[in-house]
């Protein structure tokens, strides 16, 4: 069924998305899943995700297509939220379906590593005292993305 990519403000339903990947098929042996949540570090009140609407969906679709080319996936799903997100709420969902678990697990790790370093999103942390701070890119995220090459 290929890759499903959505960039949206609304919350997503991970179980429903996984069911869609498997619907009507009996050749899938594994669906691996990652859900990224908003943590309440240091008195964080909310997080605001800015993105580049003209580019974001295509950028994620290119990353998803790369995952489909590198692993024998029957499908994958990437949903990334933008706007204001509260602690405990989900930010991003990545699913990969395959006949066997290793391809699904590796593809999910790859998708997250490349999403974090290549998709045009920027996180701003908003604190209870009214202050705010833009999240800085992490060297370990670059290193994680680099291990997949290309």
């Amino acid at each position, binding site marked *: 069924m290929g890759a499903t990519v959505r960039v949206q403000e609304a919350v997503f339903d991970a179980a429903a998305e996984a069911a869609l990947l498997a619907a009507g098929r009996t050749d899938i042996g594994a669906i691996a899943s990652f859900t*990224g949540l908003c943590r309440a570090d240091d008195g964080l009140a909310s997080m605001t*995700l*800015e*993105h*580049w609407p*003209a*580019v974001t969906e295509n950028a994620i679709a290119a990353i998803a297509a790369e995952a489909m080319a590198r692993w024998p996936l029957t499908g994958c799903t990437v949903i*990334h939220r933008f706007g204001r997100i509260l602690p405990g709420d989900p*930010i*991003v969902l990545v699913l990969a379906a395959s006949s066997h678990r290793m391809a699904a697990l590796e593809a999910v790790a790859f998708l*997250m590593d490349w*999403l*974090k*370093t*290549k*998709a*045009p*999103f*920027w*996180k*701003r942390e908003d604190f209870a005292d009214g202050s705010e701070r*833009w*999240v*800085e*890119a992490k060297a370990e*995220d670059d290193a994680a993305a680099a291990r997949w090459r290309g």
Partner: protein
Amino acid sequence: MQILYFAWLRQRTGLAEESLTPPPEVTTIRELISWLATRGPGHAAAFAEPALVRAALDQELCGPDTPLGTAREVAFFPPVTGG
């Protein structure tokens, strides 16, 4: 030329985008950054540390020495932090 700003570059310049015609001697991303930084205190703050700024020419990531050529749009943003 349309210039786009994201995240703290947008906040510091106070602009999501602006339409500008750089002078002819501005031919690369690096030169465009230097020229934009002279446009006011907000722009100066946004481009105070050029090493922290990423650029895309007509939606393609590019380095500081990339020629502007006939590009219609240049976007400036910090390293991405999604996921």
